């Protein structure tokens, strides 16, 4: 059983811990650099990439603004195709449906395709509590599950592990839950993949119940789509007698032909391939082929809350490609665990507060600040989610949620700044004080030999008291000895 993200510290604390781990930094830098180059190469092959992004974003916007109609249509199509449709308001309700299906078939294990929705609802932990083992079958998910670890990337959850660590996990853990790793296992990725193939094959062949998510759900035809690489998805979708798919309500697209853009955008954005090795589509039950009992759980779990946020609702366009993680300078350095959620990186920094609401817990409220607002995520996003704008709006929401009668130090500082900048006389006085302080600090630095300079300007090492938080991660130059306005006055704009 894997751990959960419950009780994770706020982002700044978690990030500090991650930044102190040189192995993690090295694994992440290698992985994100590799995938960025692959993505850039295959995106450049598509001449009309920008038009595809615009079309994809518009399809999703149209769906979201009429989501109730599309969900009813999806329910109708799925039912007509022999699927049983369930609705789940919460994580608990979704997990209860899966547990009930498993119990009805008398099984104590299910095989799972990698799925963000089932991770979000902590399905494995819910099932374990009822004595049902959920076997992750995606290689990276298997590494995370066997290592009793947490996922740190949407697409490659074990991106923080290198091959030597993976080999050690396989050798130690595989035998405890099934076929052990081969005795002569090496850390060659091909050998590690082979070990996973052998370990999981017996589980696939005996599984009665499979569990999946879906990348897309087509309202008109009742078709679910799973995009994958290894064939573990096909195994889970095809071999078991019973299939339960947990699908977020925002995954719906109106018609089959709308997949034209999404199946072009997703693999190139995600794994940096022209096409992923396997995509499966199925519409309810196909007689004589695959599972003959098919359940679909439509999951809200905060999505209707996110939908009500006029700025933030665009986050529901997300197709979980993880391109924004790979280009993010913050993610590249901290990794995914610091975000305290199955949705890390830039999309996680907006999706978590939108799904959960702000003002309730410190961890969620810290996420909109886990960004430099550089905008690389927006440029990479195949459905054009303007993540920086949503981050800024969420920061405002966090501030509003924490307003009380007594202003904090930041609010006081801002008010003082407003008063100073609001009057030429007060600004001039402040500038004179600042120049004095600058000269004093320079003098002290000369005496104490703490003379650090960048671009010719002396830096203050570290501020005392409440200012320490600012200088922890930034260089603060000493105040200039003369302000621009004083210089202008003295030299008549440089003429003297």
């Amino acid at each position, binding site marked *: 059983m894997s751990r959960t993200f419950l009780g994770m510290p706020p982002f700044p604390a978690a990030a500090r811990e991650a930044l102190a781990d040189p192995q993690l930094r090295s694994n992440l830098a290698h992985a994100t650099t590799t995938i960025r180059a692959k993505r850039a190469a295959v995106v450049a092959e598509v001449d009309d990439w920008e038009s595809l992004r615009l079309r994809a974003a518009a399809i999703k916007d*149209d769906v979201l603004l009429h989501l109730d109609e599309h969900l009813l249509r999806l329910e109708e199509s799925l039912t007509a195709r022999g699927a049983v449709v369930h609705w789940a308001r919460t994580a608990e309700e979704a997990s209860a449906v899966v547990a009930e299906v498993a119990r009805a078939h008398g099984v104590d294990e299910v095989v799972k395709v990698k799925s963000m929705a089932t991770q979000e609802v902590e399905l494995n932990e819910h099932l374990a509590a009822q004595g049902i083992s959920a076997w992750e079958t995606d290689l990276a998910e298997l590494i995370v599950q066997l290592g009793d670890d947490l996922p740190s990337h949407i697409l490659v959850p074990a991106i923080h592990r290198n091959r030597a660590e993976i080999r050690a996990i396989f050798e130690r853990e595989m035998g405890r839950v099934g076929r052990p790793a081969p005795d002569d296992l090496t850390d060659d990725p091909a050998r590690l993949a082979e070990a996973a193939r052998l370990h999981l094959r017996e589980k696939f062949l005996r599984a009665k119940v499979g569990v999946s998510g879906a990348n897309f759900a087509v309202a008109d035809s009742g078709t679910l789509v799973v995009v994958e690489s290894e064939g573990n998805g096909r195994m889970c979708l095809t071999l078991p007698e019973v299939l339960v798919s947990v699908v977020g309500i925002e995954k719906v697209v109106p018609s089959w032909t709308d997949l034209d853009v999404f199946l072009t955008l997703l693999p190139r954005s995600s794994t940096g391939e022209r096409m992923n090795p396997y995509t499966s589509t199925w519409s309810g039950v196909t007689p004589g082929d695959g599972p003959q009992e098919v359940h679909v759980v439509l999951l809200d779990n905060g999505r*209707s809350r996110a939908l009500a946020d006029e700025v933030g609702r665009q986050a529901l366009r997300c197709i979980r490609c993880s391109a924004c993680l790979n280009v993010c300078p913050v993610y590249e350095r901290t990794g995914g665990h610091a975000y305290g959620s199955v949705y890390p990186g830039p999309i996680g920094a907006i999706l978590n507060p939108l799904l959960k609401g702000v003002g309730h817990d410190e961890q969620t409220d810290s996420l909109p600040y886990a960004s430099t607002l550089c905008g690389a995520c927006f440029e990479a996003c195949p459905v054009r989610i303007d993540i920086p704008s949503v981050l800024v709006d969420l920061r405002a929401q966090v501030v509003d949620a924490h307003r009380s009668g007594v202003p904090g130090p930041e609010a006081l500082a801002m008010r003082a700044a407003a008063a100073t900048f609001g009057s030429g006389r007060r600004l001039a006085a402040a500038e004179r004080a600042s120049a004095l302080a600058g000269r004093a600090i320079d003098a002290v630095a000369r005496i104490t030999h703490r003379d650090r300079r960048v671009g010719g300007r002396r830096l203050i090492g570290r501020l005392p008291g409440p200012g320490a938080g600012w200088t922890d991660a930034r260089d603060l130059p000493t105040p200039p000895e003369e302000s621009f306005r004083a210089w202008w006055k003295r030299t008549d704009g440089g003429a003297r």
Partner: protein
Amino acid sequence: MSARDEILGAVREAVAGCRGPVDVPPLDRPDRDGDVDLFADRVADYRATVVRCTPDGVEAALAAALPEGASVVVPDGLPYVVAGAVADDGLTPSDLDAITAVVTAATVAIATTGTIVLSHGPGEGRRVLTLVPDLHVCVVRADQVVDDVPAAVRRLDPARPTTWISGPSATSDIELSRVEGVHGPRTLHVVLVG
């Protein structure tokens, strides 16, 4: 109130007042024929084997693609004769696990991405058939090759299950280094006809 009614109610409330129509731009791509040479190159990029032959040479190409003495299964309706192959008469996954290779046809193929799509009708078989054996030999006719993903989507019937195959199964989960061959067939052999 049921979960269904509550979710639908919450969704309606969330978008109340912003129901305006959204202008969805159509896909603006010229309708081009699929480039068969490009398809062959792109399949090979995935480290799959591509062999080209004339319509008369298919059966010889299939025989050459199959290892000597390998057990082979074929679906109903395959328009080619594969010597020594067993027919799929409801084999269990465990039965299929003991079979080396499967030979099928395809429904459509995509040039720009090197993708083969099966819709699991006659000649293509149940989904499990092309999943469990370790070698998949797939016959694609030149007239089945379309230019891009949107053209393939238009040709397919959503009522059928479909499997889109781009190379052998693969993973990049270990340090993002690509390894061919995980759970699906570890070898994909495409016979391109015409």
